[in-house]
């Protein structure tokens, strides 16, 4: 009985400290390293399955894949050339205006180790950690848009919070009207909501949202999602705006970790607090 009470008190203290402050990162990092082999062992059969599927796919499919990818590459190259030109022009103009340009972000490809064990939170574990230079607060993207941000880093792995997690908020900007708002995660569903938008706000179904870069956490200009539903209730102060994330949050295995071009000062604050201070 005495032991149970002691253990319960320690648990409550641990939980409080873990929730309020970030002092337990070291302990979490040690324990994460200990469970890392387990996560790899669980992931191994899935990796093996993928490997087998890739190795035994027919030659014809590989040839057609190759042709398609080559064509894609050609198109992207053409676009990239145009983009490089625009980027140079942008830099020139910014120099004229005396404002700093934020281009040339560094990226790293990471793979998912495991996903949402807890049905209430949207977290993932990645196979890159402090050893690869991953930092807390880094943003996570895929080829379609923003996915989330890194919240814990261990030597060999890291934990990331997806943008649909109920404790996550991210500053966005409407691409059409320029209206700024916060996209808040609502939990189990693959949806986001725009917080605190008045009923007469200029939002329409189909509007594209991009990151505004205002929190200092996410780089600006990455697509976040598309507005799929706008409900304006006369009786309520705010409109309910539902957004479908453009990143394939539930279907990806590979993700990109982005380092901002300029290191930000706000990286040691709590993720939610940093992002909600719009």
């Amino acid at each position, binding site marked *: 009985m005495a032991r149970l009470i002691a253990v319960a008190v320690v648990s409550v*203290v641990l939980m409080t400290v873990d929730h309020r402050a970030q002092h337990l990162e070291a302990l979490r990092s040690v324990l994460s390293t*200990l469970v890392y082999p387990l*996560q790899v062992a669980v992931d191994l059969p899935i990796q093996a399955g993928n490997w087998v599927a890739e190795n035994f796919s027919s030659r014809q499919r590989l040839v057609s894949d190759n042709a398609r990818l080559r064509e894609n590459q050609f198109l992207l190259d053409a676009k990239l050339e145009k983009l490089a030109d625009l980027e140079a022009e942008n830099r020139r103009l910014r120099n004229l205006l005396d404002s700093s340009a934020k281009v040339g972000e560094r990226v790293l490809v990471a793979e998912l180790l495991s996903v*949402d064990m807890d049905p209430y939170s949207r977290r993932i574990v990645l196979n890159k950690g402090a050893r690869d230079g991953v930092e807390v607060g880094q943003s996570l993207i895929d080829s379609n848009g923003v996915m989330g941000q890194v919240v814990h880093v261990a030597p060999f792995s890291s934990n990331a919070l997806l943008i649909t997690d*109920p404790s996550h908020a991210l500053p966005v900007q409407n691409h059409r009207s320029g209206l700024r708002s916060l996209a808040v995660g609502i*939990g189990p569903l693959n949806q986001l909501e725009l917080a605190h938008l008045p009923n007469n706000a200029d939002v329409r179904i189909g509007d594209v949202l991009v990151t505004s870069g205002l929190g200092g956490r996410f780089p600006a200009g990455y697509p976040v999602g598309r507005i799929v539903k706008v409900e304006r209730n006369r009786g309520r102060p705010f409109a309910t705006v539902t957004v479908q994330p453009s990143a394939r949050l539930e279907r990806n295995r590979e993700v990109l970790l982005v380092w901002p071009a300029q290191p930000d000062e706000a990286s040691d604050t709590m993720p939610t607090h940093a992002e909600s201070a719009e």
Partner: protein
Amino acid sequence: MNTTRTGYIAVTLSLVVALMLTALPMPAWAALWRPAWVALVLIYWCMAAPAYTGVVMGWVLGLFLDVLAGTLLGQHALALALVAFVAHRFHRQVRVLPIWQQAVSVFGLVFLYQVLNLWITGIQGMPVLASAYWSSPLISMLLWPWVYIVLRDLRRRYQVA
């Protein structure tokens, strides 16, 4: 009630397998129905070989589960410590029961574990689905006979307790 080295190895290995089963990726619709593997294995050893287990062991196991699940440090630890305490206290009464009555007690223990976990999740302001209170205990209860048989064979082979 002497403990042996092979006994400790068998207990530890079964708990590691339980942790791995917990980390196994599952489709989104099945996430609510994930059995509480670690709690099940812990309950078995508390009943069948109480000399090997205890409150502190449940607590440490819970810390690993917290790191694996990305929850607050101490959340699963507190719940598993309580489960270990109750299972330990009533092991003499429960282990003589027929297997289906044991399963009912397992339902109660896993329900206790789940309620504590969901309360702590709720205190943090996360939304909690009402069906989560009974889905995991129910599936754990239905799985108990199989867990019991597998672990009993393991216990006999390595002569734990």
